[in-house]
């Protein structure tokens, strides 16, 4: 089967005067993990809501496993799982009751619903909290339960909308492990995130959205390569030296370095450049906090593509 798991063609969605999606095209290969990357308001959540049949598109077409998300919504719903930005579990029910409820709604028999629930409770490390009301769960536990709830029906395609927003690093890693395991089992995953590291960690393919349009796509490595090879970065120990270092870099390379708010200067780099810069800074006696070559991060990619940093401030709700 060459038919991609998800195919989107010219997808348009507007909310009043706001254009959330302005003609998005993308494909997700079967069994792959695609990271949909972009700042708040770029259209990530809207894309997921259209694909999971929660929103009707205003134009274009989207299919999931060959089924049109509008005309064949029930067929799509049979095959997908959705974990939204806000844990969609019932606070007043226990973890077990939440999962059994979903099982029953998926027409599992009581016995199968119970068995599937036990499996998932075990898998997501919720055994001890299984009988407790979700109200008493920590953020990480809720998120794991939410993920478990989206897996009750063994979906072939899983949508994760910012699955780790608001989680601390340890819980974020836990969720990542679960996503990797699912991908290893062959589940197609479409994951939205504003964390570049997350996309880098989990996704084989990336699509970068900005203001409802796809501005780049490819593997993390190819996107980084587009930015152009390695980057030379240097951060003087004292902020006062930034100007002098910038001038020196200009003199050595006749390029203007980018300077970020932490006082880090970057520009395209080669080992020879690194060496020459190191020698000169040594001679001038400028104390350094950092000096080196690195591969561009996805943030560099985003900055190159849009002229803005991708990492947003505190997460706010995307227009949906």
């Amino acid at each position, binding site marked *: 089967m060459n038919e991609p798991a998800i195919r989107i063609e010219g997808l348009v969605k507007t909310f009043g005067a706001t254009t959330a999606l302005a003609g998005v095209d993308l494909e997700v290969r079967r069994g792959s993990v695609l990271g949909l990357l972009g700042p708040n308001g770029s259209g990530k959540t809207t894309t997921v809501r259209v694909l*999971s*049949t*929660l929103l009707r598109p205003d134009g274009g077409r989207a299919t999931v496993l060959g089924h049109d998300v509008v005309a064949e919504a*029930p067929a799509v*719903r*049979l095959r*997908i*799982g*959705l974990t*939204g*930005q*806000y*844990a*969609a*579990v*019932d*606070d*007043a*029910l*226990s973890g077990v*009751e939440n999962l059994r*409820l*979903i099982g*029953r*709604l*998926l*027409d599992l028999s009581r016995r199968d619903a119970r068995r599937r629930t036990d499996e998932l409770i075990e898998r997501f490390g919720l055994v001890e909290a299984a009988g407790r*009301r979700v109200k008493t769960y920590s953020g990480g536990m809720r998120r794991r339960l939410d993920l478990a*709830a*989206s897996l009750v*029906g063994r979906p072939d395609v899983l949508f994760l909308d910012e699955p780790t927003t608001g989680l601390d690093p340890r819980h974020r890693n836990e969720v990542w492990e679960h996503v990797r395991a699912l991908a290893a089992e062959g589940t197609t995953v479409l994951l939205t995130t504003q964390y570049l590291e997350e996309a880098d960690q989990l996704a084989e393919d990336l699509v970068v959205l900005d203001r409802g349009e796809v501005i780049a796509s490819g593997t993390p490595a190819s996107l980084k390569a587009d930015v152009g090879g390695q980057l030379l970065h240097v951060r003087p120990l004292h902020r006062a030296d930034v100007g002098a270092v910038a001038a020196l870099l200009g003199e050595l390379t006749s390029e203007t370095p980018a300077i970020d708010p932490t006082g880090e200067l970057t520009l395209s780099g080669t080992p020879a450049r690194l060496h020459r810069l190191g020698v000169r800074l040594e001679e001038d006696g400028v104390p350094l906090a950092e000096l080196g070559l690195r591969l561009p991060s996805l943030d560099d990619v985003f900055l190159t593509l849009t002229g803005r940093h991708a990492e947003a401030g505190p997460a706010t709700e995307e227009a949906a």
Partner: protein
Amino acid sequence: MTTTATVTVPTTVPEPPPRTAARHGPSTLRHGATLAWRGLVKTVHSPEALIDVTLQPVIFLLLFVYVFGGAIAGDTSAYLQFALPGVLVQTVIFASAGTGTGLADDLHTGIFDRFRSLPISRAAPLLGAIGADLARYATSGVIMLVFGTILGFRTSAGPPAIVAALLLVMAFAFALCWVFTALAMLVKDPRSVQGLGALISLPLTFGSNVFVPASTMPGWLQGWVDVNPVSKTADAVRGLLLGGPVAGPAGTALLWAAGITLVFAPIAVTLYRRRT
């Protein structure tokens, strides 16, 4: 839950074409029942959610009987006889306003997104919410009757008449819950739904003969009280519990309930579909 289901079917599914209804009908009911189960488990887990249908009406009854009873009817026990059937109606009306708040809450938390991404009928969550609330209405009705009896309310009616009175009250609450559901779909914020709900339920219950006989009211108000379905329902419940005419007021009350349902159920379902 089977009775709930049979009550609910004809009113909620007027929208989809018959083919779809026939194909999805049984599973819609099954999923609706499952979601009603969710509502009931929730209530059992957090009994504080039952306060509005238990403690609140009890306090209402105590206040009215002991604060106003003497002034209105001469003595409190005579007033209890007069007021209890009406307070029964009032209780379930308030409870049905709670249906709207609960739905608005659900729409708020994102759990509806999950339900809507499942291969179940879009009507099932709505049916579930209303199914669970019918059980709440019944609970509150029974509590009021029991508490009234403790305070000294005496009925001449046998069990069938008492059950009939409860069913009539629930039918009316069922009709009204569509109004509150429509409201919840229009005014998404749960707290505003609660406020607006009170704006509907207070004039409806106090502008009736529930607490005071209409004869003491100004003419224009009597005009309203006479047509107010709450008065008719209260009259029918009085007839059933205390003796007196039943068929007339009960017929009018049921017609009202059917009319309200016919108007507001399609509106609520349409708004719900648009919303979801």
